[in-house]
């Protein structure tokens, strides 16, 4: 058997071709950039279109080392990219020819390795004779010694077949490569339930880059007599691939070999397009089965489809690329986009209109969506309305809902508005001994309608608090409550309860954390308001009293109405002796850590520091991966803070942290020159971002602080400079605007692959006159980003 080295042919990429704009020549000294026909690798968030196809023609390439062994490494590269699929380099491209060869190689292996066992298993079943000869349920078990390098190991699909399992175990024993490759066989094969665990491995060298687990129901085994195709490996494989929902896993699978690639594409049901609107005409047309298409994330962010230079052409191209669409998501602020889409996809059954600029809280009816839809359904495209079976829409008035006439509508979701108002109500008991589901929204309305509500008793209400991330909802938003009694609630989980507790603005952070101590080793997600109320806390602690709501109510001097947003600005002073007190109050003897905590959400008032967080109890959090920090308040009322930095660097205490949302969007200040003694927003931006470079972040969402007077949320120079120090950053979403040359700073981040300016706030930037970042600037930045070489 020849080694892998000899299987691969030399990979000779085409030299990059430069295209000039027609009609402009060098002689003219025109300023038209050399137009490199480079594709945005984000056009699809996968590299499907590029990885195995024509990308090598389109991307600028450097000389590829032509030694065969390096090609093996290249494949390994691609698999490495599988962890994070949009990170492939031009060197990591898999040539189709390579794929073919690889597949051939893998099949060969499987025959030699497992022939005897499988023959036994399929004995007497004529349908499977072909399989035994050609391919095998267990695909790709190369022997270690045949792998001339350790870079690629292969892909395993294991079927619930004892013999295959045995052969695999044997293989693993024999070929355990330096202890580096962690291949695990489906551990429990349960033939009775026909359910097995399928694992894909893309293992490169010492890095086990991606493991995917999912449960999959296989057809009965041995297969019932019938047409052979029903249970042939191809069909099974196709089903398996179709069952993979995670996009990156699908992309990984598509890289395995050409067959997998074809199967993957044929079974891809949903695609979310990224990349620039102007490049849409190059959209890949290899996804014939896509039924759900998301166009709302196209760049430039928040530009409607109809703003393309030739919207009709784009729609036409899209319709041809995705012929079987039934579900569409797109950004729409005006009728023209809807008309455009409706004219092309009259068979669409599910339409989602996205408007990023949501008004905060309960909004008056939104302008574009419902109204335009109503007009649409009434006049323009009755056939579309006829076909719709699902419609999600928000902010509709009841008379507008009546106006929607879709006879086939099966599912209709609409956030309703309540008109009832009891402004003087203070005490309310609702126990109707009947299960009421999804009641959260009702309590939010209750809160807005009954501002004086102080006491609430509920029975059999469900869904009263279902916070999503740090966004609280339901009864947690009833700010005026002093007493809350909940009975027979079926779905109130820890997070729901924490949501309610964390909304009690009278609870300082330290007490909240202490209250959670009994369950802290079970909490996975936590939101906490960083209120460092030092004096009060010290008092409470020194008494050795644990967490007691009543005690707090009496002691602290917050406003009677409980609505007080005044946060004391005492600088937190921490006494080391407190540790002893904490330990002596009952929980202390065995120190509990936040072992399970993976997600931490923080609210913090502007000007407050993050540094007391560790002392407040969040010290041992070895598994925090994601953190969300919301900074809120008015800088204009604040003098220059004494501290130079907010304290992000303390987060290095959380070794696994890789994702951060830093939301200063509700921090209000002066965008332009501030009065003397105060800081303008660029300096506040610096205050909050100092130290971010010390964190080993991979993903960051940043909301710059805003100046409401000029409706500006712009990335400042210091912010751009500090962000550029996050060397490991791969994804950066800035929820604001930015000047082109500030964006260019970000090119220093070598790992950066995905950057977007998302203007997803309210009020929306004025489309006509907002100029911090124009579409052209955006494109130039994207081009520069995509032109770079990717180290991995």
């Amino acid at each position, binding site marked *: 058997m020849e080694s892998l080295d000899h299987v691969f042919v030399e990979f000779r990429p085409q030299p990059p071709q430069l295209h000039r704009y027609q009609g402009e020549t060098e002689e003219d000294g025109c300023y038209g950039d050399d137009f490199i026909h480079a594709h945005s690798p984000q056009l699809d968030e996968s590299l499907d279109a590029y990885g195995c196809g024509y990308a090598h023609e389109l991307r600028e390439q450097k000389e590829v080392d032509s030694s065969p062994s390096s090609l093996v490494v290249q494949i390994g590269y691609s698999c490495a990219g599988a962890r994070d699929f949009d990170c492939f380099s031009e060197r990591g491209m898999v040539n189709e020819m390579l794929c073919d060869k690889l597949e051939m190689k893998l099949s060969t292996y499987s025959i030699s390795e497992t022939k005897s066992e499988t023959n036994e298993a399929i004995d007497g079943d004529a349908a499977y004779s072909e399989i035994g000869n050609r391919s095998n349920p267990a695909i790709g078990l190369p022997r270690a010694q045949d792998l001339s390098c350790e870079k690629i190991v292969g892909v395993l699909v294991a079927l619930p077949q004892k013999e295959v399992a045995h052969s695999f175990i044997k293989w693993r024993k024999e070929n355990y490569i330096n202890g580096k490759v962690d291949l695990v066989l489906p551990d429990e094969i349960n033939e009775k339930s026909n359910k097995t665990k399928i694992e894909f491995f893309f293992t490169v060298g010492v890095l086990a880059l991606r493991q995917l687990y999912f449960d999959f129901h296989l057809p009965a085994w041995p297969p019932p007599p019938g047409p052979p195709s029903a249970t042939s490996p191809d069909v099974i494989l196709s089903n398996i691939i179709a069952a993979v929902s995670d996009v990156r896993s699908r992309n990984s699978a598509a890289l395995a070999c050409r067959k997998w690639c074809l199967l993957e594409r044929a079974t891809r049901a949903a695609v979310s397009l990224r990349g620039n609107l102007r490049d849409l005409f190059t959209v890949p047309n290899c996804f014939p089965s896509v039924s759900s298409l998301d166009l709302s994330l196209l760049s430039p962010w928040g530009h409607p489809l109809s703003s393309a230079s030739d919207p009709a052409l784009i729609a036409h191209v899209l319709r041809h690329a995705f012929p079987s669409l039934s579900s569409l998501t797109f950004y729409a602020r005006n009728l023209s986009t809807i008309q455009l889409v409706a004219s092309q996809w009259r068979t669409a059954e599910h339409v989602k209109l996205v408007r990023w600029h949501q008004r905060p809280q309960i909004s008056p009816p939104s302008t574009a969506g419902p109204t335009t839809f109503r007009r649409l359904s009434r006049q323009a495209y009755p056939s579309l309305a006829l076909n719709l079976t699902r419609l999600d829409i928000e902010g509709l008035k009841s008379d507008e809902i009546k106006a929607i006439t879709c006879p086939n509508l099966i599912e209709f979701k609409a956030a309703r508005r309540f008109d009832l108002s009891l402004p003087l109500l203070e005490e309310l008991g609702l126990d109707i001994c009947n299960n009421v589901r999804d009641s959260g929204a009702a309590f939010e309305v209750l809160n807005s309608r009954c501002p004086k509500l102080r006491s609430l008793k509920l029975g059999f209400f469900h869904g009263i608090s279902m916070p999503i991330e740090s966004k609280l909802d339901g009864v947690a938003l009833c700010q005026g409550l002093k007493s809350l009694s909940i009975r027979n609630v079926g779905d109130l989980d820890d997070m729901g309860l924490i949501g309610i507790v964390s909304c009690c603005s009278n609870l300082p952070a330290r007490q909240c954390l202490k209250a959670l101590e009994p369950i802290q080793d079970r909490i996975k997600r936590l939101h906490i308001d960083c209120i460092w109320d030092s004096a009060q806390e010290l008092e409470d602690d020194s008494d050795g009293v644990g967490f007691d709501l009543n005690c707090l109510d009496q002691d602290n001097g917050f406003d009677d109405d409980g609505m007080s947003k005044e946060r004391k600005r005492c600088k937190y002073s921490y006494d080391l002796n407190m540790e002893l007190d904490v330990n002596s109050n009952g929980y202390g003897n065995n120190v509990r850590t936040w072992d399970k905590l993976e997600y931490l959400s923080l609210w913090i008032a502007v000007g407050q520091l993050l540094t007391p967080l560790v002392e407040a109890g969040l010290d041992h959090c070895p598994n925090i991966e994601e953190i969300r920090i919301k900074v809120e308040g008015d800088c204009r009322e604040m003098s220059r803070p004494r501290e130079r930095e907010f304290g992000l660097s303390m987060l290095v205490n959380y070794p696994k942290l890789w994702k951060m949302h830093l939301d200063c969007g509700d921090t209000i200040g002066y965008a332009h020159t501030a009065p003397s003694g105060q800081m303008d927003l660029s*300096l506040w931006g610096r205050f909050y971002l100092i130290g971010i470079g010390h964190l080993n972040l991979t993903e960051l969402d940043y909301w710059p602080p805003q100046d409401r007077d000029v409706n500006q949320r712009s990335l400042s120079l210091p912010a751009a400079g500090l962000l550029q120090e996050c060397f490991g950053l791969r994804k950066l979403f800035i929820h604001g605007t930015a000047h*082109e040359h500030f964006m260019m700073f970000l090119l220093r981040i070598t790992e950066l692959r995905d950057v977007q300016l998302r203007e997803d706030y309210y009020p929306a930037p004025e489309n*006509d006159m907002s100029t911090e970042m124009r579409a052209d600037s955006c494109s130039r930045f994207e081009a520069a980003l995509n032109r770079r070489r990717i180290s991995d």
Partner: protein
Amino acid sequence: MPQIPNSTLLHFPTPIHKIKLKKSNRVYMGSSIAEAHNVRVLGAGDTVVVLGHGFGTDQSVWKHLIPHLVDCYKVIVYDHMGAGTTNPDYFDFDRYSTLEGFAYDLLAILEEFRVHKCIYVGHSLSSMAGALASIFRPDLFHKLIMLSASPRFLNTGDYFGGFEQEDIDELCGAMESNYKSWVSGFAPLVVGGDMDSVAVQEFSRTLFNMRPDIALSMFRMIFTFDLRHFLGCVTVPCHIIQSSKDLAVPVAVAEYLHQNLGGKSIVEVVPTEGHLPQLSSPELTIPVLLRHIQHDIVDGDC
């Protein structure tokens, strides 16, 4: 329409339409002018109003004014070359080392959009570029509205421009050191907090909104140009609108303009603060601007 006396033309380069641009200056070809300058034509009306923004800003500086104009006027807005929104690669450091470069740009835009007559509203730098353009082609301008305009920012002799040479040197020095630190990657930590002077802060903010080397080049140009001797050649009626408290332009400058402009002129001082009153105090400034756009100077006024 008064004609420029022939003698005055001697002071100036050949008018734009007769100039054969050097190769290096031929940066705009055909319809690319509109694209390069992000030109936008808004509204409908027989009269054309052209809005030129000042240093360190872009056309968005007019966002409060435009909504009031689009119903009655055809409004043309554009960005200067070098503004944060234009492609920095198009900035020709030679061409824009004098005010003429900007004047030529304006004339080229007017030509491109076949504007035969317009009301030109210029802010700061642009008001002077407009004045210069009106000397080249007075036939194109019905009148000029100059907001926060100054023919010379430096104090010279008995002229009070508002800045001493030392101030400018200090500002330039600060900019240069910051630019260097920017280039070396440390700018964010330096800019702002460690520069105490309000003036330096203010300018650094505007400057760093542009690509810093471009900003610095324009900054130098602004503090070297001296248009005082050419004011007499401006024959188009000029409306001078000035903040009562402007860090960059003292009120005395407005009076100087009024005294020295060659044509009719009128001064209105608005009780606002800052060099960008149309942005910082639109409620006071916009009505004044509108009034001056809508009404011409009657002889008795000046």
